[in-house]
């Protein structure tokens, strides 16, 4: 155990002497945590819309006013012909075309229904879909308002109407930041941990100092622990910093016990660092280690349930996410921060991540060879 003390001393000295590592640990995550949540949400704003109004009636003008005042749409063009509007789509100047046919008002009043035409630029599928859905719902609202007005003059029978009211549990105002910030924090923690660990041992291989270590009677697990512990402490510091940013900038205060987040993070970090060290022991150059770490990180991030819901992935992809440690932490951090889940609720996740930690670190110790 004595040699572990000297290893730790050395690692800490090297970390604190390396401004690049300190920047990577402390400044980059904070900047990313400040920037990324501002842009990583699914709210669609500023959908550009072209309107072709063949009717020029009171109703059509009122409807256009209602759509543009919703804040979601921006009137990009007002044309007389469909061809002109399509031209805008072709040049990517607009996302949607709303065509109001001539006689819209008259048909609506006389026949109690009137057709409208919406064309969607589906290059950006999500934007197009959500934009069209918003537009539909605004038009539906407008339709109901019109009807409500008519009902006051009893020209028509009052129709029974069902109105659905929804309530968003755990995130009352569907604040995306509340949902995204904890998840992004998990990603940052994973990246800092995995990259630092992945680059560390392989760096000693490149500069040749590993030979000098390997020719000493040092125990393999002491060497790995000597690499693991400093980054583990750094990881917990990054987490604390991240939680502070979440509180100060986004006003996010975990509903549940913050100690649970630390407990889970402590074991999660061991798993991630173990993976990094494993990558480091099997790589020959820092470039190799970087590419492997980057490849895994892409999968971890895109298949971790941060941006897309795991439940809507194909079955095989869901199976892949079981082997993604990030999935469990994102789940846990959301459960604790948003819902106030307790130890009992996260116990299963805790057990799984513990297995990850044991397997990955044992594998790293095993694959680190003092002799070739």
């Amino acid at each position, binding site marked *: 155990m004595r040699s572990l003390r000297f290893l730790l001393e*050395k690692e800490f000295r*090297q970390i604190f002497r390396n401004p690049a590592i300190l920047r990577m640990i402390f400044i980059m995550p904070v900047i990313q945590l400040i920037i990324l949540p501002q842009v990583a949400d699914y709210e669609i704003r500023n959908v550009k819309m072209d309107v072709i109004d063949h009717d020029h009636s009171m109703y059509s003008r009122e409807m256009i006013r209602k759509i543009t005042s919703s804040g979601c749409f921006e009137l990009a063009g007002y044309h007389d012909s469909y061809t002109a509007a399509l031209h805008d789509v072709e040049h990517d100047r607009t996302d949607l075309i709303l065509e109001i046919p001539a006689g819209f008002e008259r048909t609506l009043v006389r026949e109690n229904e009137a057709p409208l035409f919406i064309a969607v630029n589906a290059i950006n599928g999500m934007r197009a879909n959500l934009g069209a859905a918003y537009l539909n719902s605004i038009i539906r609202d407008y339709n109901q308002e019109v009807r409500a007005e008519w009902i006051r003059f009893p020209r028509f029978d009052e129709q029974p109407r069902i109105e659905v009211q929804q309530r968003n549990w755990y995130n009352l105002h569907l604040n995306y930041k509340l949902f995204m910030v904890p998840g992004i924090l998990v990603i940052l923690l994973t990246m800092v941990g995995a990259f630092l660990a992945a680059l560390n041992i392989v760096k000693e291989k490149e500069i040749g100092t590993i030979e000098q270590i390997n020719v000493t009677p040092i125990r393999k697990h002491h060497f790995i622990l000597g690499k693991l512990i400093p980054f583990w402490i750094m990881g917990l510091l990054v987490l604390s910093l991240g939680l502070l940013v979440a509180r100060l900038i986004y006003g996010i205060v975990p509903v549940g016990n913050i100690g649970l987040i630390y407990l889970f993070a402590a074991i999660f970090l061991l798993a991630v660092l173990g993976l990094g060290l494993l990558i480091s022991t099997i790589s020959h150059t820092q470039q190799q280690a970087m590419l492997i770490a980057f490849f895994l990180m892409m999968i971890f991030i895109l298949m971790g349930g941060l941006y897309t819901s795991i439940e809507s992935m194909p079955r095989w992809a869901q199976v892949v996410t079981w082997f993604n440690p990030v999935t469990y932490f994102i789940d846990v951090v959301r459960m604790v921060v948003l819902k106030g889940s307790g130890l009992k609720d996260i116990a299963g996740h805790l057990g799984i991540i513990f297995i990850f930690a044991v397997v990955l670190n044992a594998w790293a110790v095993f694959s680190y060879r003092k002799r070739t």
Partner: protein
Amino acid sequence: MKNPEKHYEYAITADALSKHFGDFTAVDRITFNVRRGEIFGFLGANGAGKTTAMRMLCGLSKPSSGEATVAGYDVAAQPEDIKRNIGYMSQKFSLYEDLTVTENIRFFAGIYGLSDAAIREKSASLLRHLQLEAEKNKLVQSLPLGWKQKLAFSIAIIHEPKIVFLDEPTGGVDPLTRREFWEMIYTSARQGTTIFVTTHYMDEAEYCHRVSIMVDGRIAALDTPAALKKHFGAASMNEVFLQLARQATRQAD
């Protein structure tokens, strides 16, 4: 141990020691013994297999076949026991450049299990001997190469190993520093340390008690420098080396 007396007399024994990388035989059944306290020169052209052989003896590389003992321990079966008893200075400079002189000394001394008192004492005497007291808190990367090499050697023997392996320790170093370096080697040998050294400088080969010359993974000659010169009818070790190295069929790396 099959023959305890042999191990008492010899610091290193090798018997048909070989290393293959796929079809390539880097070291081909080398057999030799190194006496205790001897300065043993291990010569050969680039790619002759010197470093591979040395790495096997240090427990950094697993032998493909043959047997060898270092400090009485079996190279194949007891590499970790060997590591407690040897010092090693690799071809690549391998102290931590981003640590200071004192920090490097402290780290390696600690890894070898020296007590705090011993570390303090060793550091002080080492810095005094190398006249590095003024530089002790400088990062190693700021030292000139010659000083780095002398420091690396001193650290390689900080735990007072029975045997020290030096892989081209004076590569790229000026003649004066080389001279000083060899004085350090002699001092160490006088204190009973066995020195196993590879070099490309033939004047250095003359300093060795005995010299082996490797050609294409085999030991082509092994004797004292004087006997080798006589045997090959050469005036200097340089001529001996050239005569043997020209027989090589293998491409240098």
